[in-house]
């Protein structure tokens, strides 16, 4: 288990060094995107329309923050991760088209995303679910808010962060996926549990 401090834009080479169980902290730009923003970003791409910013080498954060506005300035009050599995239907295309190097969320992602991470060079950084203030304190500036018509939870928030983490590398760019490993072990434990509960014949 190694600890890395990465600065955006992150190169493919840097991301390929990371292995599952490593811990990373990110300094630079991260961009939130949930279900609706993923869908819109891919629609824009298929129509040849540019996104509000170039995502290459950045981190995409599955997050719908609590925000407040002081004058014209947005403040991120609380900003923990949301469940990433909902974005599984979009993420392979998202990684392929926009070349994000880190996907931040909670709960893990499936095989399709794991394969895309291996193919194009990206990792999944698990941030502790609910640890919203820990996250907010690492957000030094809300650079801009895009697509606010989707509602504040679904908008594209562009954050400048400093040592954003700890993020546990739970999917690396070599096909390893901690969540899938845990799921396998859980499946093995299931029979023992059934036995303990007297559910087996």
């Amino acid at each position, binding site marked *: 288990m190694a600890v890395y401090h990465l600065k955006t834009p992150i190169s493919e080479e840097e991301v390929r060094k990371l292995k599952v169980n490593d811990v990373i902290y990110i300094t630079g730009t991260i961009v939130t995107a949930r279900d609706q923003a993923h869908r819109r970003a891919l629609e824009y791409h298929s129509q040849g329309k540019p996104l509000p910013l170039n995502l290459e080498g950045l981190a995409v954060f599955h997050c719908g923050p609590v925000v407040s506005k002081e004058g014209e300035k947005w403040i991120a009050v*609380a900003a923990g991760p*949301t469940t990433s599995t909902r974005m599984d239907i979009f993420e392979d295309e998202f990684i392929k088209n926009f070349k994000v190097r880190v996907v931040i969320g909670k709960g893990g992602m499936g095989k399709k995303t794991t394969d895309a991470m291996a193919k194009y060079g990206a990792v999944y950084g698990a941030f502790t*679910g609910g640890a919203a203030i820990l996250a907010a304190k690492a957000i030094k500036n809300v650079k801009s808010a895009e697509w606010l018509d989707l509602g504040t939870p679904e908008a594209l928030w562009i954050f400048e962060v400093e040592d954003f983490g700890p993020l546990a590398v739970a999917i690396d760019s070599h096909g390893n996926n901690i*969540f899938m490993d*845990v799921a396998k072990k859980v499946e093995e*434990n299931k029979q023992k549990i059934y036995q303990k509960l007297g*559910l087996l014949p």
Partner: protein
Amino acid sequence: MEKAKIVENVAFNILKQAVIYLPDDVKQALKKAYAEETSETGKTQLKAILDNIELAEKYQAPVCQDTGTIIFYVKAGSKAKDLDKIEEALVNAVRKATKEIPLRPNAVDPFTQKNSGDNTGRFIPHVNWEIVPGDSVELTVMTKGGGSENVCITGMLVPGEGIKGLKKFVIDAVIKAGAQPCPPTILGIAMGGGADISMKLAKKALLKPLNEPNPNPEIAKLEKEIFEAANMTGIGPMGLGGKTTVLGVHIDYAFRHPASFPAAVAFNCWAARRASARISADGTVEYLTHKMKW
């Protein structure tokens, strides 16, 4: 002060208590889990959770950015005045809390997909009523996160399988939920009544403090058995592996139809937010879950 205004103020205060300060029993359970967790990754997750709880209190900010769907449970004394004004007061409190605490706007019209922006909309905040003897009004708020809500499940089990069927239903639900509900979670389990009744009871069971097992020893034994079994899964904190998957289990039940065995499992994330207060007929207020001055 008029009654509606008192209700609005108290509802605002308990919302604020709930989203910022986790109840003591939940904090104690998380600390115990941290001390006992053997998985290295699991321990880092519990550490982040405990650090985050402290930061939320220090900065008076919501402990989680998903400030949930807002659900009230009202125990209304049959002799209390102005009961018809309470729902409007609760809606006003939610609007004010959304702006001032602030909360994340979490009420979306399922037809248009538009977010109302203030956590209110048709049937939201949701109010569960109970008429009780007396002239006081007790308000409880639960702010229920979406991640844990997404894995709640109801099922119509086979009556002939009895409690065995229930045990399997619950363990399968915990395994299927995996990392999604932000483990370590709390399980509210209920059986009987009907599909709607069992889920209603399961969700309400999430309001019980973790250190209060069911007073019926048979049910308490089942709670303990399911608790131990769920923690054998190895899902662990945030699903990254470990021995802490659930912090507690509460079971409730209603009598069932001879042909039906409805069952429900309601999950709550570790950020199990709830707060209560009682308003007496003379307008005095007692905060029941959070011992702080307001």
